[in-house]
């Protein structure tokens, strides 16, 4: 586990990684959360989350299990519904209006821990289905784009296989290509490497890194501290549905202010 986590940091440091030095304060607001709260029955999963994520920013969300990371990230494309507060994505507020939701979902790509590829469709159809039917692209164009994306994630030769015939790492790369095919402005990653064998983690993280460098706005829930250190513009630490502490990776890993953060770091590092 530590092996895989530290390895990616080892080599590509040569290029100044995404944005520790970037100044994003003038960038547009992509995701605005104001006092977002959510309950599952009596259990409060999110408790007054407020933060703003800028265009091109890469935010890594850390926190112990059950702290509400997945719940939060899933609220942003409304796979979960928040009950209090406001979420505004790319200037569109998330309400019950179906059209808003569909618009936001086609602009926000999401990659899941369990890949969730469509098992009855070939890889290329997995990638091109949504562009054809949601974006209304002509099939030929959508398939060309899908091939280009598969090339970008390094598996063009698997295009005509079924997901079940691929390794975990390959499947997760297809899932990333599928999300990218909708040309989203924001990408959400929920523990995308947790279900992978250690040797496959790197291939997926590398793709996420290039994506970050290309200027995609990203929100990443992960346990890969190496990735967080190297790629994140900002790290948000959550516990019990609240944001406990946030800041640059240096701040977060080298001199965290909160005791709970220190405890968390001491447990995982």
């Amino acid at each position: 586990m530590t092996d895989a986590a530290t390895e990616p940091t080892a080599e590509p440091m040569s290029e100044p990684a995404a944005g520790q030095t970037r100044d994003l304060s003038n960038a547009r607001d992509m995701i605005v959360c104001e006092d977002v709260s959510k309950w599952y029955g009596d259990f409060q999963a999110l408790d007054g989350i407020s933060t703003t994520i800028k265009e091109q920013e890469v935010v890594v969300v850390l926190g112990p299990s059950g702290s509400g990371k997945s719940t939060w990230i899933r609220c942003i494309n409304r796979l979960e519904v928040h009950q209090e507060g406001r979420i505004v994505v790319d200037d569109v507020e998330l309400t019950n209006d179906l059209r808003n939701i569909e618009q936001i979902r086609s602009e926000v790509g999401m990659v899941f821990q369990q890949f969730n590829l469509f098992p009855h469709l070939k890889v290329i159809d997995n990638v091109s289905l949504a562009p054809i039917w949601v974006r209304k692209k002509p099939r030929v164009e959508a398939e060309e784009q899908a091939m280009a994306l598969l090339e970008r994630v390094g598996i063009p030769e698997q295009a005509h296989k079924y997901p079940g015939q691929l390794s975990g790492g390959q499947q997760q790369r297809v899932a990333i290509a599928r999300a990218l095919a909708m040309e989203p402005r924001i990408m959400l990653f929920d523990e995308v490497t947790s279900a992978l064998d250690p040797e496959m983690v790197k291939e997926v993280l590398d793709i996420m890194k290039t994506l970050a460098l290309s200027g995609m706005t990203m929100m990443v829930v992960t346990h890969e501290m190496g990735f967080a250190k190297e790629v994140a513009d900002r790290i948000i630490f959550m516990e019990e549905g609240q944001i406990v502490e946030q800041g640059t990776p240096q701040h977060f890993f080298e001199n965290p202010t909160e005791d709970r953060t220190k405890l968390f770091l001491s447990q995982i590092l």
Partner: protein
Amino acid sequence: MSEFTGLGADLGMSTGTIPAVASPQTPKLPPREWVRANLFSSPFNSVLTVVSSLIILAITRGLLSFIFNPQRQWDATATNLRLLMTQAYPEEQYLRIWVSVAVILTLTGLSLAVWRAGSAVSIANVGRRLLSFGCTLALFALLAPFSARATIIWLLIAVAVAGGGGTLRRLADSERTISTLALVLIGLSGLVGSLWVVPYGNHTFELHRTPRVIAEPGTVALSTKFPWTIMLLIAVAAYFLGTYLRDRGSLNATRTTLALLWLLMPPVLLYLVLRDPDFDMGHVFGTDIPIFLACAVLGGALLNWLARPSTGEIGRIVAALVLIAAFATFLTPMRMIVRLDLLMLAAFALAAPTFSGGPRARRNYVIGWLGLLGVMSWLVTAVNTPSTIEVPGQFFLGGLSLTLMVAIFTIVISFPLGLALALARTSNMPIFRLLATWFIEFVRGVPMITILIFFSIMVPLFLPPGMHLSEVAAVIIGYSLFSAAYLAENVRGGLQSVTRGQHEAAEAVGMTTSQKTMFIVLPQALRVSIPPLVGHCIGVFKETSLLAIIGLFDVLYIARNVMPNQTEFMGSTKENILFVSLIYWLFCYQMSKASQRLEQRTGLGER
């Protein structure tokens, strides 16, 4: 003993891929060792083997002595074959039956080629099966109550088959294979060829002579050898045409066309070919075609506009208005076809945003509308046209063709209905869910017979004046509703097996609920439901035997009530029932085999 190796080979064959997979690790045991390992591995197993072999032998002997008992009146089935197949369909119109069979065979041949049916089996394997078949035959010949001469003839045949199989097995090297389709063709050619030699159903009962079964030249029965030969040739030709189309044209287009033809086939054959409708051309040109054209043009224009991605919200409102208008037509008297057209237009209008897109997508959508509208208009016209086929009784078809017709129509109609019910029952729209649940629970709570009786007797009383529904049509509707309720429950099981992750992934890429359902959920759900769905189809097929209760002459009714009452075949019920069960079994077994193949096929590549 070779009996048992034969059995083993049979098992290996029927499970298809397993031997190929297992063979590298488990070398095939020689017969003697196989028997020892599988049948006599312990004293207890030996006892089991001996006892069950004795039981099987006793049953076989019983069955054989029943079948070959000289008292059996197999003449009854032979003479009544035509009655069993088509009941009283007029002999001079029989060409229509043959045309229908030819259409079905053509489509079958084309489909076999286009879908690449059939697989390769090694010739040695065929030899092995022939060998075991020959041995079984020999065993049967010894068990059956034959005269010495007959026994010897049968034994000789058995030995010939077994010997042929044995040499084939020895001579053919294991690499040589033959397509299963070729084997089927050889078998069918044999059957058809034998028609020219053996006068199977070649009997006509002539009352005015001495009451005796005779072969009479010129009757339908006698002339079947000719039509069947042509049918076989048609099927083969269709197959080769299919291979040509498959290798030349665009495969997907061919497959779609074929699937549509299969769907169109039952109503076309029934209404246009078998029924010989007496169209009133003045009415057709004066009313039916103008209504169709008006709906086609106006509806096409409306849908073209609705399927434009830029139409947006107004489109949904317009679609809702069309739906309300369609329902409103039921309040005032007007032609049924107008109501149906409007209802269908409303359905298309509501679904338009799902299929919206560029000019190509819109054109396809409008073509879909025109096609469906055309089929429906034609069907309504055809249904309302009187048939010119004059037969005594309620319906011009009977026997096996009635059974098949009701089964096919029921399955085809209840399938979309069942899907819709299952989706409604799992949807998050409370009204749909409630309605679907009530319907399903109500239908499942009443016996099938009550529904049949209700539809055959009561429904015609409730119909608006001027509307006529033939009894068979009413019964098919009742059957379909009944079957749809069960089908919905099977599909619902499949729907529930689609994981939440699949739903979320589809939603996360921005699909609408209907897109998600159509492209992600249903394909996976249906694949899981193949076994129960095929089981259901088998059930529907067999339950058509209940038609007898409301006075229709299905094949079982003829066998049980009609034939044993013919003076010359008094009390031939047992033979007839055995024969009819064989027919039922043949069909059901084929369905079940098809289900296995379908499962293997759709399972390909999915882990």
